[in-house]
């Protein structure tokens, strides 16, 4: 351990595999930006090139080679090392840049591996600093043990710093190596089960969007109406009941298998560990991701089921920590299939005392229904009017469906929403078909907002939004005095004690 730590004190380059990764990144970037042009170039009917075209192509090729060269030089000009209390990175081909990231600003370090990394036997190390977006740092290629040593070193330094500041006498035993215990591991069958119970409609929506986007881009590139050609070729695509049925079935089947495949590859061999300081997650078939999350940084935990999942007693659990502005959801630990007991384990060991918390339940006002049903009546009126004007009886169906189904949804949502309060914890439970439960310690809140529409003001109601550094909770249509008491209490709790909250 000591030896490899020393390696980082001098400026050094990345593993040589980084060259390959730089080139790969470069190619991906080019393909992503210019694929319609390349496609046209490959498939165009006229094979002869005019002089201008030749010139253009030559420019593109030379530009490409030049950028490729830059990618390689970038490797040789990228140095990183650790100083006493900061990570230092020097990089840049034309403009040299020097980034210094003090350990205290570093929120977390992630070890990641995509397919290429696995082929080359290296990992990438991503350093996250919350609050300041654009200051995220990634070291593209490192030997695995180096990356692990670096992460351990930085986290250890951070902890020592924190201890020096807090002067906690109970601290010394914490520096002992931490034992990790496996909380759960998903087998292939587990993943199939989870994949089958995913929300396939969402995938179908994404597919429809992607296909249309693709058709538009390609049609633009070929200057042809591709959709029209497609419909002319395949009569089954022609508008009509059967065409629609076939398309819908096809779409569902594709969506089903895509979700299944994505679930399995994304969460392949998912392992979830717990230690005293935090949680670790390893998962992925092609892109292997490893996330480590310190317990004290956890802001809120959310767990969700849906009707199918409920039959199997499975929940999706996501653990949210402080995220920086540019963050993607990937930052958060998310486990797609947890048993009830495992959910409780995670929650109770993250938020000590939440098991014994004395929660009191509160409902939201029925006015929620009265307010939102208006927005369901609007489409009903539009469809009704159109049906009447166009003498089209088929419009009756949506005119009735909107308020009835929408109303049912709203009514169930209002009936099932619960806000649970205890002195230290706040929990909400919401959802119509499935249920989403969010739990957060009150002191993690960093801002409170009360909203009141004119409608709510007349009825002495208010909606409360509580923001943490890792996500927010919204409670609609509470009685005003409860909303205000909640706001006052949360602020009191946050402001009356100093705690390490992020």
């Amino acid at each position, binding site marked *: 351990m000591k030896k490899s730590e020393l390696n980082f004190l001098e400026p050094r380059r990345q593993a040589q595999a980084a060259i390959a990764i730089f080139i790969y990144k470069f190619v991906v970037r080019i393909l992503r930006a210019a694929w319609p042009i390349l496609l046209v170039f490959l498939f165009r009917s006229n094979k002869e090139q005019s002089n201008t075209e030749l010139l253009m192509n030559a420019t593109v090729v030379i530009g490409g080679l030049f950028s490729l060269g830059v990618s390689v030089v970038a490797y040789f000009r990228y140095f990183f090392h650790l100083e006493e209390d900061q990570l230092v990175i020097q990089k840049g081909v034309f403009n040299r840049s020097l980034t210094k990231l003090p350990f205290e600003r570093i929120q977390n370090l992630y070890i990641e591996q995509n397919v290429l990394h696995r082929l080359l036997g290296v990992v990438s190390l991503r350093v996250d600093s919350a*609050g300041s977006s654009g200051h995220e740092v990634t070291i593209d290629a490192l030997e695995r043990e180096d990356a692990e040593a670096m992460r351990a070193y930085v986290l250890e330094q951070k902890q020592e710093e924190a201890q020096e500041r807090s002067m906690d006498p109970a601290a010394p035993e914490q520096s002992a190596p931490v034992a990790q215990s496996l909380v759960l591991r998903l087998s292939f069958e587990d993943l199939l089960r989870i994949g089958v119970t995913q929300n396939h409609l969402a995938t179908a929506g994404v597919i429809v969007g992607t296909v249309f986007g693709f058709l538009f881009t390609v049609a633009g590139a070929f200057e042809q109406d591709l959709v029209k050609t497609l419909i002319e070729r395949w009569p089954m695509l022609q508008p009509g009941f059967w065409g629609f049925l076939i398309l819908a079935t096809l779409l569902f089947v594709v969506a089903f298998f895509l979700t299944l495949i994505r679930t399995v590859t994304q969460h392949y061999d998912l392992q979830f560990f717990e230690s005293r300081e935090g949680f670790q997650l390893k998962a992925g078939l092609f892109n292997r991701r490893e996330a480590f999350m310190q317990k004290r940084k956890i802001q809120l935990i959310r767990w969700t089921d849906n009707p199918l999942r409920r039959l199997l007693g499975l929940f999706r659990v996501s653990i949210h920590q*402080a995220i*920086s502005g540019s963050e993607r959801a990937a930052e958060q630990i998310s486990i797609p299939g947890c048993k009830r007991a495992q959910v409780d384990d995670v929650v109770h060991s993250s938020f000590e005392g939440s098991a014994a918390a004395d929660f009191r339940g509160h409902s939201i006002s029925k006015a929620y229904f009265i307010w939102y049903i208006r927005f369901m009546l609007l489409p009903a009126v539009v469809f009704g009017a159109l049906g009447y004007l166009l003498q089209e009886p088929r419009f009756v169906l949506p005119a009735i469906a909107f308020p009835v189904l929408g109303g049912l949804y709203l009514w169930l949502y209002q009936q099932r929403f619960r806000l649970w309060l205890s002195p230290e914890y706040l929990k909400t439970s919401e959802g119509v078909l499935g249920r989403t439960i969010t739990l957060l310690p009150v002191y993690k809140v*960093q801002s409170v907002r009360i909203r009141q529409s004119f409608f709510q003001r007349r009825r002495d109601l208010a909606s409360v939004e509580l923001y943490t550094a890792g996500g*927010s909770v919204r409670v609609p249509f509470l009685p005003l005095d409860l909303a*205000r008491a909640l706001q006052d209490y949360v602020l009191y709790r946050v402001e009356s004690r100093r705690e390490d909250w992020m």
Partner: protein
Amino acid sequence: MNTLFQNAQLSIEELPRVAEVDWQGLDRAYLRVDLIGLWLFRLGVLGVFLAYTFFVEGFPPVVRWSIAGLWGFLLLLTTVLRYLGFRIKGYAVRQHDLMYRRGLLFRSVTVVPFTRIQHSEVEQGVIERQFGLSSLSVFTAGGSQSDLVIPGLKREDAERIRNFLSQKVAADEEE
């Protein structure tokens, strides 16, 4: 109300109340800044739209003028709402937090405790500068949803609050 949090050390009745705060209104000139910005933007969009419809041949004049009329009507309506909403807008600095209130039809009150502020900035837009006004932006960690912007402050006031905030934040970190 005591039934709300059973184990709280003190009763909710004794907590400082957000609802009883004295709101500090924004500078009078801010109403003008706000309206000038609104009119410049909306009239600009209208101008582009009209230019476009005159440029395209055979654009039905009825459609053109009814859209322009609706746009103008909405502009007047927004102006009235902004005018009436101005007196709602206000901020307050308490011992431990900063608050901002806004919204005539949809009112919101946002409170950010000093201990949760990452950093703060004083900004000045082009129109604001003509009136000697500034905005104070307060940033928290995580997403931008919980960030707070208080517009329409006199430059000195904005600076003073900002300095006060950074002193508070620094003092917190030392302890």
